[in-house]
């Protein structure tokens, strides 16, 4: 069993062999991956050491103290948070070897081709078709939408319908799609903030070799559950210091700008401060609980809480700023590399955080998940469970 002392020893070894000050950033990250110190709970040879997940913090702290570069996790949230655990669980040995290292070091960015114009909350209703060819390859046609970061991505996780004659959950297969392939057309979709952070993606006769299938044919819905459960934890469960989230900027504004203070705002701010601290503790507790297990529906709870907090806090901050709250920093249409919550002003935070209760499953759908899967309440009556996908009304 790899314990904290052993991890510290290995971290010191890595630092001695590759001093951060004199080592190229990418070389350092690759060496870290190869030393099993990337995600310590992953298997040996795949960036980990089969250690308890909770010990990652030990490694991170040592490396941070030594001034080592990080893999810029915000740039590849979908890759790290969602594609990687799915590949780890369902990928073949070759797939794991091929994709995980460039993913972790950030050489290759990933996006998620799940949602479609007609299949959002009801993701399993999706209509993008993948048809098997004589040579075993697949040919994919369809349209995806709201695809975050597709314009920066090398790879995508993709779900497509491979059998329209069975009920919707049963006819889906999970693929890895090469975003550079002919037939993949990424078009910017501007959003409420002014930026085009997400995209529409048109797939026209995209050829996907069978060795980029993840899991069995027709088993894509189960594979996607792993992605979605991890997504909720990835979105809701970042490890944060006190005031590390949305409450940070507004607390700073409050301290620095006494002229903006009113009694009314004071009470609201303190309530949100307490809510933020409690949410942070809950996330930490969930993390301790998870240790090495796979996340379950509890992740939905975290995501729900953070979405609400982000929205309430940023809404309060816009109001607190008064005259400045009537202004915005920049409406220019651009295609950003990441969501920059802290680099922009309160108005941006307010608008962007509206997406937190939609992306990765809406809050309504997550509440249903908590009610049904955590509390065991009966599900709503379903009329689409036993009907072939092709016979569903659209």
């Amino acid at each position, binding site marked *: 069993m790899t314990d904290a002392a052993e991890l510290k020893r290995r971290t010191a070894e890595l630092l001695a062999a590759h001093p951060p000050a004199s080592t190229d950033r990418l070389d350092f990250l690759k060496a870290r991956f190869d030393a099993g110190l990337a995600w310590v709970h992953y298997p040996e040879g795949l960036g980990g050491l089969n250690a308890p997940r909770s010990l990652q913090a030990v490694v991170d702290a040592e490396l941070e103290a030594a001034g080592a570069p990080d893999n810029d996790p915000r740039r590849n949230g979908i890759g790290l948070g969602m594609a990687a655990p799915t590949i780890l669980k369902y990928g073949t040995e070759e797939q794991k070897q091929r994709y995980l290292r460039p993913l972790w070091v950030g050489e290759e960015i990933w996006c998620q081709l799940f949602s479609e114009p007609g299949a959002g909350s*009801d993701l399993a209703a999706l209509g993008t078709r993948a048809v098997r060819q004589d040579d075993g390859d697949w040919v994919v046609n369809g349209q995806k939408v709201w695809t975050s970061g597709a314009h920066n991505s090398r790879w995508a996780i993709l779900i497509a319908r491979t059998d329209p004659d069975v009920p919707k959950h049963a006819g889906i297969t999970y693929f890895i799609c090469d975003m550079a392939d002919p037939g993949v057309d990424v078009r910017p979709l501007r959003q*409420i903030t*002014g930026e085009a952070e997400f995209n529409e993606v048109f797939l026209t006769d995209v050829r996907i070799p069978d060795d980029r299938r993840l899991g069995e044919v027709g088993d894509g819905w189960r594979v996607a559950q792993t992605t979605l459960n991890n997504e909720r934890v990835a979105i809701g469960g970042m490890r944060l210091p006190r005031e590390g989230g949305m409450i940070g900027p507004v607390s700073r504004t409050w301290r620095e700008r006494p002229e903006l203070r*009113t009694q*009314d705002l004071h009470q609201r701010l303190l309530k949100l401060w307490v809510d933020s601290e409690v949410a942070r503790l809950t996330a930490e507790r969930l993390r301790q609980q998870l240790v090495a297990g796979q996340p379950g529906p509890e992740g939905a709870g975290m995501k729900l809480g953070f979405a609400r907090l982000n929205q309430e806090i940023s809404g309060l901050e816009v*109001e607190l700023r008064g005259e400045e709250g*009537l202004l915005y920093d920049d409406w220019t249409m651009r295609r950003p590399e990441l969501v920059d919550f802290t680099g922009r002003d309160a108005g941006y935070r307010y608008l962007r955080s*509206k997406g937190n209760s939609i992306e990765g499953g809406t809050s309504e759908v997550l509440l249903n998940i908590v009610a049904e899967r955590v509390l065991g309440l009966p599900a709503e009556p*379903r009329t689409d469970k036993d009907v072939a996908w092709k016979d569903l009304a659209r």
Partner: protein
Amino acid sequence: MSDLLYSEEEEALRAAVRDLLADHCDAPGVIARTESDTPHDLAAWKALADGMGLAGLLVPEDKGGQGASHREAAVVLEELGRAVAPVPYLTSAVVATEALLACDADDLLAELASGRRIGALAVALNIAPGGAYKVVRHEGGALHGELTAVADVQAADVLLVPADDGGLYAVDASAVTVTPQIPFDLTRPLATVTLDGTRGRLLGDAETAVHRALRAGAGLLASEQLGLADWTLTETVRYLKERKQFNRPVGGFQALKHRLAQLWLEVVNLRAAARNAADALATGEDTDVAVAVAQAYAASVAVHAAEEALQLHAGIGMTWEHPVHLYLKRAKADSIAYGTAGAHRARLAELVDLQAP
């Protein structure tokens, strides 16, 4: 008791304004305009002001207006809110007009009432009635200084500028420097106004005029917020009846039905409060309390309605192409305009003798 209903004439007025806006201010047009270099829809303004004579509703007939009242103006604002119309109605036909009504400036009043000229009170949009506002320096017969976050100046011909000698001055817009700011609400542009030895004409006492103007602005803003909330609710209900997920209209899920029913209740309350404020402004009875109540209540409903609309439209609601963001931005900016709900609650505490501890 105030009259909280709409008269037949008011309903006819509503229908006429709604028709006009359907022709002039459709959502794609408003979205496109926010990115053009003419943020105001001056054609719609001309049709409203010139064609229908609505700029003069608050001005007595013997001064060149329609001799109507705040009740009618409120109906117009409801419709403008429903369309997030980028016209300077609230700022010129209500706020600037009210300031002039408190002064001795019949010529200007008539011009504003006819819609031939557009006026703007040069006070930052976030100032509550009774709140402290910035003034410019009056020195040697000329005005100097900079004012920020002034709404709709880009469209204005004449600015009403408060100065440090206590006077309110009329200044020709061509005589000042107007620098557009980047507004959160793109349908109500804001600008900085710089006066550098600008000549102005003394109209009267600034404090009285500004207070009267901001009080009417705050009171009638509630009607704009009502119209906005009503549109977002109606449109969301319509969409959720149509949008299918899980083989059924999502509006059929009880989780959503109850939320929309709850929102409807808030909108019903806001309608009563906004109507009461409009009526109180018209009659002059209980006006301060009516305005404070309406503004203490309206923002949370309008913002809530727009936020729900976005959430329930989900993915498409987050896009620039869908108009819901225009409503959210207007609702949020309106929650600051003419004082926040908190400021109005504080004012109310004085008015009804419920002082803070």
